């Protein structure tokens, strides 16, 4: 594969200064405010945040799937290295252009939280997988059918030839999520965006799906962006984790950094809210207060309104600069900036 100077550190995707706003009746709302992240080849990036944190918006923008009233700021950059080795700037593509359609599915695939509604009820599973295969691979219909059935088999669906002919409502929830993964992988993408893929599933099925994703990643060597609000889930799959809050990234590090040495008060609070075997007997603590409305976004650090360690006169004045704690671990918090000063 031809390496280009533009991509560093074996990165597949580099997102910089990403700012996304929505035009609404109530005014312009900024959902994602100048964030930066990158995904390495063959690795999994986890993005954690509560609903409204902008985690879905920022990743959907990689495929330019945002609604019409969305505005991606001109300074934003989403660089992606295609299979051909060519590095493209996704924000520069015209909507619905051919280049964009090649990226969608063929290079970057997306799986959703709701496997039921992400399939059309009136076409068979097979029809929808074949559509994906035929769109991105130069194969005949017969070959596409073979690929589809093979893929259903690989994601652990029993009796794939029969499932191929069935409709989405004839499958169980776990099966549908497997089928959804099959659709995504049948297009042979180099990046898979999994948007809360296990949230609507039972815990046992959840574990199966996570295991399946880990296996498939090893087998196919693709990168994954895994979005969830559940730190417990992400610890099982991610190599690196970004913590998002109200359109900003608050902390970034390896899974080990974030789970075992969380530095940002928000990350710490999130972790305290998860039941753990080693802390049995301790009370779980919820984060007090609600996420502020994006219409009245706090000035300064977005989390200061709910932060236990808030420093009045500092946190509510401007957004903290990133503090590099180690090669891999970065935090956006005045607690650490102060120490540096």
């Amino acid at each position, binding site marked *: 594969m031809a390496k280009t100077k533009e991509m560093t550190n074996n990165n597949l995707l580099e997102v910089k200064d990403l700012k996304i706003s929505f035009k609404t009746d109530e005014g312009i709302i900024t959902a994602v405010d100048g964030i930066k992240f990158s995904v390495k080849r063959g690795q999994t990036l986890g993005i954690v945040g509560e609903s409204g944190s902008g985690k879905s918006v920022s990743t959907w923008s990689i495929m330019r*799937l945002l609604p019409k009233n969305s505005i991606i700021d001109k300074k934003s950059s989403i660089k992606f290295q295609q299979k051909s080795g060519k590095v493209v700037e996704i924000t520069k593509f015209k909507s619905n252009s051919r280049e964009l359609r090649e990226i969608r599915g063929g290079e970057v695939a997306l799986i959703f939280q709701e496997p039921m509604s992400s399939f059309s009820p009136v076409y068979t599973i097979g029809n929808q997988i074949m559509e994906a295969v035929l769109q991105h691979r130069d194969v005949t219909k017969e070959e596409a059918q073979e690929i589809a059935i093979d893929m259903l088999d690989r994601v652990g669906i029993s009796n794939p030839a029969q499932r191929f002919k069935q409709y989405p409502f004839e499958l169980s929830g776990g099966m549908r999520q497997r089928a959804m993964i099959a659709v995504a992988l049948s297009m042979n993408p180099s990046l898979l965006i999994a948007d809360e893929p296990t949230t609507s599933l039972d815990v046992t099925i959840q574990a199966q799906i996570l295991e399946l994703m880990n296996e498939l990643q090893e087998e196919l060597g693709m990168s994954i962006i895994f979005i969830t609000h559940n730190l417990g889930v992400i610890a099982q799959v991610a190599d690196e984790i970004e913590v998002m809050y109200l359109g900003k990234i608050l902390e970034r590090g390896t899974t080990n950094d974030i789970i075992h040495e969380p530095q940002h008060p928000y990350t710490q609070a999130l972790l305290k809210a998860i039941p753990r075997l080693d802390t049995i007997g301790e009370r779980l603590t919820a984060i007090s207060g609600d*996420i502020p409305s994006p*219409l009245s976004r706090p000035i300064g650090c977005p989390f200061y309104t709910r932060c236990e360690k808030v420093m009045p006169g500092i946190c509510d004045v401007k957004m903290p600069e990133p503090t590099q704690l180690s090669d891999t671990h970065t935090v956006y918090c005045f607690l650490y900036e102060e120490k540096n000063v």
Partner: protein
Amino acid sequence: MTTTDLSTQEVQAPITQMESEEAQRYYSASQFQLIWWRFRKHRLARTGALILLTMALVGLFAEFVGPYSGITRVSEAVLVAPQAPQFCNDDGCSLRPFLPGITSERNTETLRMETKIDPSVRRDIYFFVEGEEYKLLGMFKMNTHLFGVEEGSIHLLGTDSLGRDIFSRTLLATRTSLSIGIIGVIIAFVLALVIGGVAGYFGGGLDYAIQRLTEIVRVIPVIPLYMGLAAAFPKEWSSTQVYFAMTLVLALVGWPTLARRIRGKLLSLRGEDYVIAASLAGAGPSRIIGRHLLPAFMSYIIVDLVISFPFMLLSETALSFVGLGLRPPTVSWGVLLQDAQTVRAIEQAPWLFIPALFVIVAVLSFTVLGDGLRDAADPYQVSG
């Protein structure tokens, strides 16, 4: 690209949390206040309501607003075209509006009487003039009319082939047509509420019978069904009898559908979480019905009533138009349009179609009003 789930989940949801006093006012308002606030914002629906109110008032005081009774014939003014009041003629201008005179001559070739406009004559229009005697609201003897001329005659919307004033007749027709719709809807509604409620409460045979009946009423083409019932009116019936029979026919065909919808809505409301929660919390049936079911239900019913009006109006018009509904001397929009059944009418006297404009405006007004109410009736839904 269009809106996707993303926009609703991630962006819109937090927006609904309005800030400050406005939000306080919003959360503490009663349901009808909320409906009213939302309705006021709906400009089109407000316009519709205003138009209908005007029509109802004008219809109610038709004898006062119109210069003539519905049966007065002005023999020298046959098939006069609509006349617009003017302020100027060749002799100059005045503040008082006036109309040109009308004369009639016998055409020497066809031997028919023909009316001509005579611009040299000036008929001044006065307000609150004395004219034909009538009973206002059927009770008060009066002879004052809103406007009129002292000599000759005034026909703002022209006259028909018998020299009757279309303006006055259309106002009377407005009263007939609107009232027939209102009485029809009310009877249908009462029937639907009582029978539908009973059926929903007791279930069983009566419920089954109503289900079947609505099914039949839904498959038989409606206007032919109305016509079949209207065809049975005896010829010797007086116009009053026919009038009330018409309201009954409209109600009889209308109620099963309404009853079915009331029943369905009641059943679905009964299963709502907040109703179940109330009963789990120990609320008695009267409290559940009065406090939870009725408020949710009333707005729905009102909307339903408003949107069933246009159909009643159009049905009445259609039936009377073909001679199966109201009959002269009763005047309704449909009866007036009987004069306009042929293409010749369009050529010779297009103003005979003016009552049709009233039908269209009334139906449009009811439709936009119904739309506005429906939007407003759901005050907790996000965005309009």
